[in-house]
């Protein structure tokens, strides 16, 4: 009995782990990385219900927040959107640079999941560069899945698609 209790105690996973929470940069730093050398100014926009409905219909993705946080560049047609999507446990915050309707780049600002830190790697992020809203944005087809983070990679992919449709809707207002 004593031995069994001892084994059970040893097997009890009373282990404290280090946090995985990571904020990698500020939104300003992310915008500057996406459009270096350009003069960027912060803007806030709010989608109308009609615009939100239209984006949902055209992109097939849900608009979770009508408030848009973005940076406008002094170079016409260049915008950086700061967006959030649902991760496995927490929201994933990222910056999407768009130049004349095409993805210029993507930077992960905050990623706080147990697995899938590869979303930050350039090799994964560069898949989006040059894509337009008409692209498929389908995991395992035009976008590679990330090992252990299928949900995160699927949601970031869906977010990029939604933002490209949002860009088309709001660019005339900026």
């Amino acid at each position: 009995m004593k031995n069994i209790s001892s084994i059970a105690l040893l097997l009890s996973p009373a282990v404290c782990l280090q946090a995985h929470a990571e904020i990698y940069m500020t939104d300003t730093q992310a915008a500057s990385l996406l459009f270096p050398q350009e003069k960027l100014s912060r803007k806030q926009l709010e989608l109308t219900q009609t615009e939100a409905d239209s984006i949902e219909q055209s992109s097939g993705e849900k608009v979770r927040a009508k408030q848009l946080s973005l940076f406008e560049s002094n170079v016409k047609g260049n915008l950086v959107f700061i967006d959030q999507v649902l991760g496995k446990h927490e929201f994933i915050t990222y910056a999407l640079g768009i130049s004349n309707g095409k993805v210029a780049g993507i930077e992960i600002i905050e990623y706080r999941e147990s697995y899938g830190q590869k979303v930050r790697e350039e090799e994964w992020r560069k898949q989006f560069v040059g894509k337009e809203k008409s692209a498929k944005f389908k995991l395992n087809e035009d976008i590679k899945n990330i090992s252990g983070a299928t949900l995160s990679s699927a949601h970031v992919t869906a977010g990029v698609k939604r933002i490209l449709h949002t860009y088309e809707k709001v660019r005339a207002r900026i």
Partner: protein
Amino acid sequence: MKSLALLSLLLPILSAPAHAGEGLFSRAYTTETVPGGHFELEQTARLRTQRAFGSYTAIDSKSEFEYGITDALQGALYVNSGYVHAVKASDDNDQQGETGFDRNQYSLDSITMEFLYRALSPVSDPIGLAFYIEPGYIFHDFHNGDKEYNGFENEMRVIFQKNFFEDQLILVYNLVAEFEFFRYKPKDALFTGEFDFNNEIGASYRVGSNLYAGLEARNHNEFGNFWSHDHSLVWVGPAIHYGGPKWWGTLGVLKQIYGNPNGPDGQGSFQGNHLFLHSHEEWEITAKIGFPF
């Protein structure tokens, strides 16, 4: 020593400070696996109580090491132990079970292995599909703690999962088949056996960033000698789940709402009012915690 044993069952829950095979429910499994090259420690404690007559309380402990062999294939090793406190309680298998058996002990119940293969992902495919197999060696009957008992078991599951609303609503269905071969030493020279098949269904919704709230139902059907129907039961109840980057935890309650047979049996032994409580319990409370590495 008893308190030390009890402490060993409860310690993992009390000392919680990590993903993949996250248990959203008390019983039902999702198709999720630990990613290749990663591992996870998981501890389950389940309180079972209230039988047909007498006083019966059991705490089952499952300590698990899970390893991602590939992204879609997970292997695991379990050590199952339990504490049984019974006073004149009913049971199917114990020799005193018809009139009431007494037992107060902690025991190592079984050691099992698990392999879970995810064929389809509920996130990137139209539906999630996984296959599960869990062979094990049984040291003691965990229903009654009988030490004059040993055997082999093999549990198999086909797991379906469908996600809705940006993966915020998760529906799962498990079809479970379990074969047990056992004997009561030294009386029985030969092994006898039973066949169980279960239907487990669960729905869980992400009500907050890290929080899921769900409902679960479990139907259990047991066949003695693999073909003779012994009993069928249904439990239902809620399950809440917290998932974070460092750890996850689940708390679920299941209440038996129907059992067959019920009422007095042919020998006059009470089976439970619309419930089968002779060798299964009316209530079970399950707590799980997991730490990914």
